[in-house]
């Protein structure tokens, strides 16, 4: 591997070749075609055949490939020709992967062999799509050609944006202008102006009132789910993100809230049918109390031990809810049904818009509480326990009670989320409270940026909203989850929006840090 141009092209090509292969083997090409057809609002492939959209996907992939190859080469040597050669090599290598795949699977299809026995996702339709509905050789050559051409295009695009002087300068000056706009004193003045702040708050309030009315029940459903996960995220963040105690079976408290609420409002086991708000309060209280009582014996455990114990709790509650033992209270595997919706001044509100309002109010109230706590004496004590429990104790923090408080509050918030969730679905059953709920919540606070409230909003949207919007990739949700977490841990371990410490000392000029001690 003496020739560096060859090497750069080869690296990108092999990576993208493997990517193409993996996507083919998991049957992602059909999904990709569907996703792209959605962009062109042609979901039933009436305007163009399906392989047309698949071609677009392959071209995009190829452009990316060429771009990366050219970038690697350009870093080494500022030269148009060698960059383009690298991207062509990249395209060639990735295309060869496509060609080989086409030849192997194309001939298998032509011999009527069903490979689904060994590779579950590789259906004959998927292979035909990969071959652009042509024969094995023609399809493979199309793959190869597309890959090379698109990689070349990618290389050219990279060159255009980074090396051509005018474009490059325009890009840089745009970035500079943006930077100076952000950091200019006038912007800061405007941002700290109380009237501007009030106007922004009003704008947000109007948006929050108007939007749920107008965007239809589907979006209300999606963002209602996101809102409930935001609640769960803020709750778990209190004990795990701030106080640093890894609680895995968080769905325990979610279940307590949901079932308490359900028992008091459902006609099924006891026909209590209490008022919505009283039942909601009881749900929150019961969950908080369960957090308090559970915390007493387990919060002296540290780190992994606590995680294992809480993991057990999450499983216990799921099995208990399913068991015949508690059927009188929980309805067994059927769960509790016909749970009442909220009423306000005797007027029931059961529409999706009303629930969206309820969730928005709950999210606002809870994030306000969390925000107030974050940098208070309590919040600082939690964070100190997270960072170094021994020293926190020595500085006077009663770590046990602090952790217990964090767990109780966090459980109460989970209870609130559970009660709202049960009320919105008018149903709650054991399947709503699986380990997956807990794992989702942990993932969302880690991806969003552990400890940071805006990060939780982002994390909830990315992990619960986006998969809901992109229904097509539903089968790959777990795969994307895993890949996302690995990639996050590698390139941005602190999350999308990492926690920032507040600026409390507003001095201008620092003195020499090694200077006088007097």
């Amino acid at each position: 591997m003496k020739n560096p141009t060859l090497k750069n092209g080869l690296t990108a090509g092999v990576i993208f070749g493997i990517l193409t292969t993996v996507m083919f083997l998991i049957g992602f090409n059909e999904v990709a075609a569907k996703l792209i057809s959605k962009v062109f609002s042609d979901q039933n492939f009436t305007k163009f055949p399906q392989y047309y959209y698949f071609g677009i996907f392959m071209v995009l992939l190829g452009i990316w490939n060429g771009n990366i190859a050219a970038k690697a080469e350009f870093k080494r040597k500022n030269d148009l020709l060698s960059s383009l050669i690298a991207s062509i090599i990249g395209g060639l290598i990735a295309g060869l992967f496509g060609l080989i795949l086409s030849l192997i699977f194309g001939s298998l299809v032509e011999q009527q062999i069903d490979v689904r026995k060994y590779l579950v996702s590789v259906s004959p339709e998927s292979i035909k799509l990969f071959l652009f509905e042509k024969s094995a050789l023609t399809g493979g050559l199309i793959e190869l050609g597309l890959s090379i051409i698109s990689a070349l295009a990618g290389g050219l695009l990279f060159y255009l944006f980074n090396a051509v002087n005018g474009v490059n300068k325009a890009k840089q000056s745009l970035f500079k202008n943006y930077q100076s706009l952000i950091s200019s004193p006038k912007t800061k003045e405007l941002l700290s102006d109380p009237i501007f702040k009030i106007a922004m708050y009003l704008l947000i309030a109007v948006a929050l009132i108007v939007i749920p009315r107008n965007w239809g029940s589907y979006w209300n459903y999606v963002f209602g789910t996101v809102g409930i996960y935001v609640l769960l995220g803020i709750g778990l963040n209190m004990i795990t993100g701030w106080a640093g105690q890894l609680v895995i079976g968080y769905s325990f408290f979610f279940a307590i809230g949901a079932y308490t609420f359900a028992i008091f409002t459902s006609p099924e086991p006891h026909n209590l049918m209490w008022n919505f708000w009283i039942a909601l309060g009881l749900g929150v209280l019961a969950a908080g109390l369960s957090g308090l009582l559970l915390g007493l014996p387990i919060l002296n455990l540290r780190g992994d031990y606590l995680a294992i114990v809480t993991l057990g709790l999450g499983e216990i509650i799921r099995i208990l809810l399913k068991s015949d033992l508690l059927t009188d209270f929980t309805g067994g595997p059927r769960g509790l049904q016909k749970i009442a919706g909220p009423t306000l001044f005797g007027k029931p509100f059961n529409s999706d818009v009303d629930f969206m309002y309820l969730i928005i109010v709950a999210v606002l109230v809870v994030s306000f509480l969390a925000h107030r706590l974050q940098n208070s004496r309590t919040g600082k004590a939690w964070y100190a326990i997270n960072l170094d429990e021994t020293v926190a104790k020595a500085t006077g923090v009663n770590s046990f009670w602090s952790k217990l408080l964090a767990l109780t509050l966090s459980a109460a918030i989970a209870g609130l989320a559970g009660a709202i969730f049960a009320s919105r679905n008018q149903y709650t059953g054991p399947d709503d409270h699986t380990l997956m709920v807990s794992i989702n919540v942990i993932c969302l606070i880690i991806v969003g940026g552990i400890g940071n409230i805006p990060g939780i909003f982002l994390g909830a949207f990315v992990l619960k909203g986006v998969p809901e919007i992109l229904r097509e990739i539903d089968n790959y949700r777990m795969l994307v989850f895993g890949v996302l977490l690995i990639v996050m841990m590698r390139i941005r371990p602190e999350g999308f929006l990492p926690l920032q410490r507040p600026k409390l000392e507003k001095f201008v000029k620092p003195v020499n840090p090694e200077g006088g001690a007097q």
Partner: protein
Amino acid sequence: MKNCIQVNQVSKYFGGLTAVNKVDLEVSEGSITSIIGPNGAGKTTLFNCISGYYKPEVGQILFFSEPIHGLPTYEVAKMGISRTYQNIRLFSQMTAIENIMLGQHTRLTNIWIDSILGTPRHNREYKRSIEEAKRLLKFVGLQGLGDTQAKNLPYGAQRRLEIARALGNKPKLLLLDEPTAGMNPQETTKMTSFIRSLRDDLGITIILIEHDMRVVMDISDQIAVLDYGEKIAEGLPKDIQSNQRVIEAYLGPDVSLLTKKYQERKRLRHAVTN
């Protein structure tokens, strides 16, 4: 002068090992006491017993005549005993000023419900604690670095920040575990005068563990020497310097023989060169 802290016959065992063995120590208010001894002599264990991190199996520790042995660490801190650590243990992800504000934890009374509701008590204390933290930052010479994360501060600054955090507790007794470890001579001199100013300006009683003998001899009113968990000597710096048992503890039991041999060889070499 009143006794600030009185350690009576304190012993601490780890399994079969006696880390601290029947140690007595009396420190009068407003004095600087050094605890010295070879590695593994039980100095830090004694500190841990005083600050409540360990519960001594035998003996009593009285702080202004009140027993504190067996109290949890946060109670001990509340009574007015602060400490620093041999290897700096700041809350590294927090800013310098937040570290000091945590040091004030015991001196604040607002609880979580205050913070949520924004009661006057919370607002008043919050403002006051920031002011106080700024004052302490200035006192230890870290003015302007308050918003830096503790882990990003230079080494000497971290040492001083740790002391500032301890001072946030308004301590009556300050335990310093090797405050000049890893410092160059200039920094050591500064730290020494800083420690003295803590006593002179703030009236804090100080106990320090230290290996740098120049520091120890310079600032101590009283020195206690530990070896194998036992106190082998106690007294004024000049007494300790000439104490035979202390020299033996540091240099080995045959030190007098060694010195004789050394002097003999020196005399011989002197004779040869002449």
